């Protein structure tokens, strides 16, 4: 009687069967990945078309807005006014207030002194011709500029010459002298919100 061994291989382990299934499972997983890739491509295709359509629509809207902007009535006037304001801001920012120099100079000047002439030189120098009754007064006049309360805006006072004269302004003899000093440009420059 022939021996039929139906159970000979059935004793192999379950792991062996799983290994036999693995390639098939891998194929199915890869098929799913391929389908997903195709789906993603389809979505990209749709998205590209959609973006193209939106871009065309937006471009048309921009053209309309551009046309609307250039055909706005009184646009030229508005642009001119804007230019006026812009240039005016620059001009105002560089505006100089010399009268502040007068007030400050009057504040720091000795009461017995009087000025014959004043010349403002653009580099921040002021040149003055002044008279005082005596040398002592000239000394006091100069000492004032060593005090912090009085030299905030003036500095480097130089006396170039002084002579004794018969003063018409003082009605007696006096000392006439010429001085040069530096002034602080912030004193006369524009300050927003009227800080000076």
């Amino acid at each position, binding site marked *: 009687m022939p021996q039929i061994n139906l159970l000979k291989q059935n004793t192999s382990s379950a792991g062996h069967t799983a290994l036999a299934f693995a390639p*098939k499972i891998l194929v199915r997983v890869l098929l799913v990945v391929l389908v997903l890739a195709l789906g993603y491509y389809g979505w990209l295709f749709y998205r590209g078309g959609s973006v193209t359509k939106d871009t065309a629509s*937006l471009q048309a809207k921009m053209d309309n807005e551009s046309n609307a902007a250039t055909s706005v009535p009184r646009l030229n006037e508005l642009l001119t006014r804007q230019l006026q304001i812009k240039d005016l801001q620059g001009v105002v920012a560089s505006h100089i207030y010399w009268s502040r120099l007068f007030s400050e100079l009057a504040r720091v000047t000795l009461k017995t002194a009087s000025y014959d*002439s004043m010349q403002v030189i653009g580099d921040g120098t002021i040149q003055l011709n002044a008279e005082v009754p005596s040398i002592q007064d000239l000394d006091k006049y100069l000492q004032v500029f060593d005090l912090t309360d009085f030299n905030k805006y003036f500095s480097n006072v130089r006396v170039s010459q002084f002579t004794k004269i018969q003063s018409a302004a003082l009605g007696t003899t006096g000392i006439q002298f010429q001085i040069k000093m530096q002034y602080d440009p912030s004193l006369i420059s524009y300050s927003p919100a009227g800080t000076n």
Partner: protein
Amino acid sequence: MNVNLSSNLTAASGFGPKAARNSIAQAGLLLVIIALFSFFVVMPKKAAVDSQQSQFQDLQAQESKMADTLNAVNQGITALDANKDNISHLDQAMPLKGQNTDLELLIQYLAASSGVTVGNLTISKQGDVPVAGDKTLLANPYGASRTLQTMSGTVYVIGTFDQLESFLKKLEDSGTIINVTAMSLTGGTNGALNLQLTVNSSYLAP
């Protein structure tokens, strides 16, 4: 006769080594297809769509800016009508034509209101630009391209210190911006002082 049913059954049911080999081949083929498809089709398409998307976003930003500008222009036009007084001041501060006679008249008026006597007043400007009767400009007053220009001159006035200080303050605070670029103060007769100023004023003209 020995029959090994187990190996035959395995082959028939597709779990045999041959089927496994087929599956591995199929998997390899699929891997290659997926890789090629991704590399040569999907990725270029994605790059193209990303680029389109980026361009679209740039356009959106431009459109938003354009819409804001258009909105601002419309608001500006409305403001022109609502601020006629301010525009009048603006025209005084930064005139749209350089007429030196206007500046001379203004300085004379300020001198008279300060009590100083005008000894000499000269205002001049550069160029040979018409200040009246320009028909092109009259037809389209705001259509011309304008640039910032300056007229300048000298002012010589006589008065007391207080009068001169008042005159100087009025010049500085005038609605028309008058810049004093140089100043000289000298003693005169009978306690009067002579003030000489170099001035300039800006305007916006074609």
